[in-house]
């Protein structure tokens, strides 16, 4: 009886000491829309089509990405490059390049299949739209550099329990 009272009191006080310690720690909540979310450099988010430094598109319209895609969400229709209209260094370029984000599972196979490293998965994860048709993103959207404000790229070290107060 007495030992039960003693251990119960000790446990209660220990619990209260732990919560009291936490009271003075800064909150760990990420205030998402107003504060950016940190993702790993290799996080697979929304696709981006890359260009060469001279402005030519990397994509050569080979459709290997569409072939590699397990959900068949990529549509590529190739066009022939001519001297007047040269969009990529190879023979052909992608005239239409569309990705249906509702079907995409962000596996990254398209990026692995791409011979010119034209398509890569970057860090945007906030992909909600008001209209289902807007979930199909077109070549124009994909070609633009896409670095939204709500994303921050964290360093690539393996996540360890952060020391409180050093989390930012």
């Amino acid at each position, binding site marked *: 009886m007495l030992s039960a*009272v003693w251990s119960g009191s000790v446990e*209660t006080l220990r*619990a209260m000491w*732990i*919560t*009291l310690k*936490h*009271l003075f720690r800064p*909150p760990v909540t990420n*205030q998402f829309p107003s504060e950016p979310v940190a993702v790993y450099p290799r996080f697979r988010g929304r696709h981006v089509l890359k260009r060469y430094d001279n402005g030519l598109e990397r994509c050569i319209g080979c459709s290997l990405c569409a072939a590699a895609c397990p959900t068949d969400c990529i549509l590529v229709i190739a066009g022939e490059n001519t001297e007047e209209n040269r969009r990529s260094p190879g023979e052909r370029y992608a005239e239409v390049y569309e990705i249906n984000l509702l079907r995409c599972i962000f596996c990254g196979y398209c990026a692995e299949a791409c011979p010119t490293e034209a398509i890569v998965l970057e860090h945007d994860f906030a992909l909600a739209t008001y209209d289902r048709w807007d979930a199909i993103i077109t070549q124009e959207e994909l070609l633009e550099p896409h670095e939204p404000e709500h994303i921050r790229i964290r360093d690539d070290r393996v996540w360890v329990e952060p020391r409180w107060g050093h989390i930012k």
Partner: protein
Amino acid sequence: MDWISLILIPAIKSVLLVVVLLTGFAYLSYIERKLVARFQVRYGPNRAGPFGALQPIADALKMVFKEEIIPLHVDRLVYVLAPALTVIPALVIWAVIPVSGGSITIFGQTITPYVADVNVGLLYILAIASLGTYGIVLAGWSSNNKYSLLGGLRTGSQMLSYELPMGIALASVVLIAGSLSLVDIVNAQSVVWFVVLQPIGFIIYFISGLAEAGRSPFDLPETENELVSGFATEYGGIKFALFFMGEYIHMITISALATTFFLGGWYGPFVGQIPILGLAYFLIKVAFVIFLIIWVRASLPRVRYDQLMRFCWKFLLPLSLLNLAVTAVVVLLVG
């Protein structure tokens, strides 16, 4: 001109108390959410106004504008009456609590810092406090729903059980103070607070107070995971808010009583020279006890119902009786 001192001044003081308590309730809900959030390393409400300070107003507006739903199967009269029955007793207790020392004289009228100095103040408090149980039991009964009924019955037996150790712990305070009047009990603590003379009594009172107010870890009445909020299942909108209000005002009342009985009421350093300090000391002590209650809520998990009952009847009640007996003997020997 007796009506001024008999009716007008008490009425003004009552209105003041009610306004202060209702505002206190609103901001207590905000402070509790904020504090519990910080205990859990979160921010808590921070969207409405600076630091979320307008949150209580947003909550109140939301509650008021909710659709009033009275289920068909309830006992309408009792169902509507029950929320009020939980709020009123928690408010009425404040009539006898002295919130400050001394008294002020304005226009020849002496204004005391309490509504009434009842010579059986403690009995009044115990009687009124048990009335609060009616609201909850009747809410459970009139809702005509098995969860509500179980919740109401649980609350009834919990409150009745914990009233005993609470009353006995307060009885040992009365033995030392030699009076049932709250003003005299506070005055008896001018030298040394009763928490020093009655540490066990204070702990028993605090634990029973948690159970009386239905606060964690004794928040069995509203166990949302087993009883779908117990007695409050069928209530919504402003009627639910009234239960909420009753619980929070009860919490303030429990803290004020703890202050009055054990923490020296409005006494503190330099209170003799500057009387207004008494009110400040009182408020600080009440805030401290409220902080303790919230701290306990953030720390301890809810007990099981059999544990709740066993703890009361097999531990708290014998301990309080022992405490009372020892106190009585010591008081007899010393004084």
